[in-house]
């Protein structure tokens, strides 16, 4: 009797395994049909409405429905009661969440996944311990219509992680860059071959950072025309190959932070019309190929005429300083170090010179009287080094730079810190701070003891 039993079992086992292979193949075919029934929207997968159910009791309601209908699987196999009890302990701790995703074109829920996550953890340790459940018909059948509608209406505590698309592409219809110290308004653009771009814009520049005379401490507001040429555009971000600026100085009205008397609050004053020139490019590539990345930055302002006392409009005689000429040459190495999200490091240095003249303006006299300062020819040589950390995220783009300026003649130096941030390429904030480093004696008369400027930034680019 027992022998017959064994024989029956053997026969059944062999028969089943052959049949097993056939079902396996059939299962795959039907599974493939099942997965391809819906209209395919994988291109929008990341943009679909996704959220995490965090309410611990609500998670239990949904988990219980799956347990009742035995709808959960672990690696394709139905879990045993012990495995379910083990997972339920995580639920009792309150560390189980449900990842829910909606279909793109209508509001049905196409994906539901249970996962646990240890509360204080660094990186993303979410382990999806049950297989994901997809297809809203199946989910609705398991949850029952009422709980399913409730899940869609989001009447519970949740974290919304629907992705919003932030793209970072420049458009060339117009570009308004409202910045108190460096405004720019693009007025004209032209493409000659398929990829390059000529951009003409009106620009303004208040303050010379390399001479540690930022923003409203500088007497002249240079404004003029800027031509930017970019050889080709890398995913809509122009890779500027050279930039030429030509402008003239407008005497800047004192932007006083409080009622300080305009003239002596700012030690440097306008003393004649001047022209401003600025060139950024990397011409060294023509000489030696290794230096083709080095960026040269040549900037200069030269006074042409000299004001008369009634231009200065002072009521009683007045001594004041004025900077009339300024020239710097700086070489910068871009992308020295790539720190990922923190940005790319760009550093370099250079030298330059600027003059400071001391004038006496007596009302009624035809000309200003120039006094020799203790420095022959009034020219001061300076050496500067700077480092910029630039990052271009889709949401946050930032530029943090430190700048060191040493003045040979005056024997003093300035350490500058510049912090600039833009959010979604539309609103931002820029602030610069220079503090003196004394080496010998006290600061010369035309110097403030610390410089601090800031400005909100609004960009409208269409």
């Amino acid at each position, binding site marked *: 009797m027992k022998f017959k039993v064994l024989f029956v079992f053997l026969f059944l086992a062999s028969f089943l395994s052959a049949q097993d292979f056939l079902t396996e193949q*059939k299962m795959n075919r039907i599974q493939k049909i*099942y997965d*391809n029934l819906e209209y*395919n929207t994988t291109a929008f997968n990341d943009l679909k409405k996704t959220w995490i159910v965090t309410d611990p009791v609500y998670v239990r309601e949904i988990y219980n429905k799956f347990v009742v209908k035995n709808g959960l699987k672990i690696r394709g196999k139905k879990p045993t009661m012990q495995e379910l009890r083990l997972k339920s302990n995580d639920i009792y701790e309150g560390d189980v969440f449900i990842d829910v995703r909606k279909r793109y074109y209508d509001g049905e829920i196409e994906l539901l996944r249970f996962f646990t996550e240890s509360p204080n953890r660094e990186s993303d340790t979410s382990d999806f311990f049950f297989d994901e459940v997809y297809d809203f018909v199946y989910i609705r059948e398991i949850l029952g219509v009422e709980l399913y509608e409730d899940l869609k209406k989001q009447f519970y505590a949740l974290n919304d992680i629907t992705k919003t698309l932030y793209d970072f592409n420049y458009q060339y*219809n117009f570009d308004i860059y409202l910045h108190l110290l460096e405004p720019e308004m693009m*007025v*004209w653009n032209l493409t000659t071959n398929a990829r390059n771009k000529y951009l003409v814009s009106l620009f303004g520049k208040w303050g010379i950072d390399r001479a540690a005379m930022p923003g409203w401490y500088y007497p002249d507001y240079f404004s003029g025309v800027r031509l930017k040429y970019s050889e080709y555009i890398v995913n809509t971000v122009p890779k500027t190959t050279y930039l030429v600026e030509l402008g003239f100085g407008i005497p800047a009205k004192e932007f006083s932070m409080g009622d300080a008397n305009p003239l002596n609050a700012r030690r440097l004053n306008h003393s004649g019309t001047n022209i401003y020139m600025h060139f950024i490019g990397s011409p060294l590539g023509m000489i030696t190929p290794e230096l083709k990345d080095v960026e040269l930055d040549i900037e200069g302002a030269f006074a042409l005429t000299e004001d008369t006392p009634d231009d200065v409009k002072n009521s009683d005689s007045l001594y004041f300083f004025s900077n009339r000429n300024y020239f710097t040459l700086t070489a910068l190495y871009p992308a020295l170090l790539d720190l990922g999200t923190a940005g790319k490091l760009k550093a370099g240095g250079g030298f330059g010179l600027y003059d400071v003249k001391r004038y006496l303006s007596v009302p009624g006299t035809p000309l200003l009287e120039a006094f020799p300062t203790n420095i022959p020819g009034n020219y001061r040589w300076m050496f500067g080094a700077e480092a910029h950390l630039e990052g271009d995220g889709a949401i946050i783009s930032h530029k943090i730079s430190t700048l060191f300026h040493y003045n040979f003649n005056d024997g003093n130096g300035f350490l500058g810190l510049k912090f600039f941030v833009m959010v979604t390429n539309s609103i931002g904030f820029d602030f610069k701070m220079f503090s003196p480093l004394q080496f010998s004696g006290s600061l010369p008369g035309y110097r403030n003891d610390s410089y601090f400027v800031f400005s909100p930034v609004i960009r409208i680019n269409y």
Partner: protein
Amino acid sequence: MINIRCKTLLLFGILSFTIFSQPVNDLYLRVEKKLSQDKNYLDVFAVTFTPEESQLQPLSNIPRRNDRPSFSFRKKDGVTYQLIFKKETIELDSITLLYVREIEDKQSSGESFFGDASQGPQIDTLTVLTFGDVQDLFDYNPTTYFYIYSLVKNAVKIEDPEALLKLVIDDSRNKSKGISFIDNRDFLSHMRLNSTHIYPVDADEQQTQRRTRRSGETTTASDMQIDASFSHLTFYHNALNLGFGTISAEIDMGSKVLNMLPYQTMGMSFGMRTLFSLKGNLTNLRNDFVIDAKLLGRARINTSDLISSLPFLFGQKPAINVGPGFIVDISTSRLYGFPFLNFYLSTSSGTSLTPYVSFGPAATPSAYFSFNQWEATFSYFWNSSEERTVRFKMDLGAANYDVYKVDYSPVTSKSMLFNKTQPVISLQTTFAPLNSEFLSAKVKFYDGVMNLFFWMKIIDISGVGSFRLETNFMSAPMFRSLYPWETEGSNSMVQIRYRYGF
């Protein structure tokens, strides 16, 4: 006492046999539920097929699962079959049959005894071959499967099968950023809502306007256009449409550059406004180079003591007189890629010096005069979203006005006090939901003063015209001290604006 006999084990075998096929049945069940319940998201197609006599034979007594009787296709008028299948996709390399439905139109088959024609066609559809049946055909009855398969393949070659996908894909694509038109559409839509003068509606623009209006009221193209309020009046008649341009008249009490409200400028400007395009006709305003030019004369009227009595004006008496003269005000669309340009010039000979407001001791009075003002700005337009519900306009440029001090005793002498070119920036936001005007707010900064201009549509009665409520607020100077020729505090004004024929 129950004892276990070997028959049980045999039974286990049978049961497990069905059990092992259980997951396949579950999958069939799941797919069939998906096919029946997911109404509009399935990317499947249907071919309607009415069998001919010759085709009946291979399609008869097809076996079906769950011991349902075998099925044969019928040839009867009013009976058609829908073969639902899936086209080739990335993972499915050939057409895959899903299920077959039989549609019987009882009405046309004349069967309905009670003549219930009144209920309209009575169609009942029945799924004759479920997904499970078709898969079993594929596994165990390939000839029938391929016969139906070839039916579908040929039908697809002849004409496109009917798609059961009911999703409206294209109208819900959403862009992440706003838009700004390269041509004049933004300029024209702004001017039509805000300008006091006529901008003829483009040909195709008319349809879109009329289509949205039809939900509201139909507009007969009236041949007269009036825009009037307590401080300005413009008039246009079709007769003045000269083909290459239009002429309309304007009277206005305000000044564009000076930070003063109408009536405070104590003068009235009157004159003509013309809109023309270099192409010679106004049909294709959207792409042509359009010039909107005003030529006005400005006369002085002593409205200084009227100010305190006007109910809609909340402001002080001005301290500066504005000289008479003539005004040029030009706005052009884009020329060779440059932005939209606006230029305003108001000049005065500076001769007539009788002051309406003066200051200083009564014996030796003196007065402030402003004779010339100009403003040159670039305009930029953009919209927050594709439906253009929220539209923006930004003007950036420079402006200048001069101020003279005139002393009358012992002899009238004139000395220039102020003549400075300063930046001007203004941002106007217009709310036009569903392309119909609703409200607009403009904030302008010039010479340290903030000017807030705001209008909102109240009532729009067809045939009579539309009424708007307008407020104009001029703030006290900020970030600087008061000029001697300015009055203290802020001034504001509220008025009703009537527009007919726009």
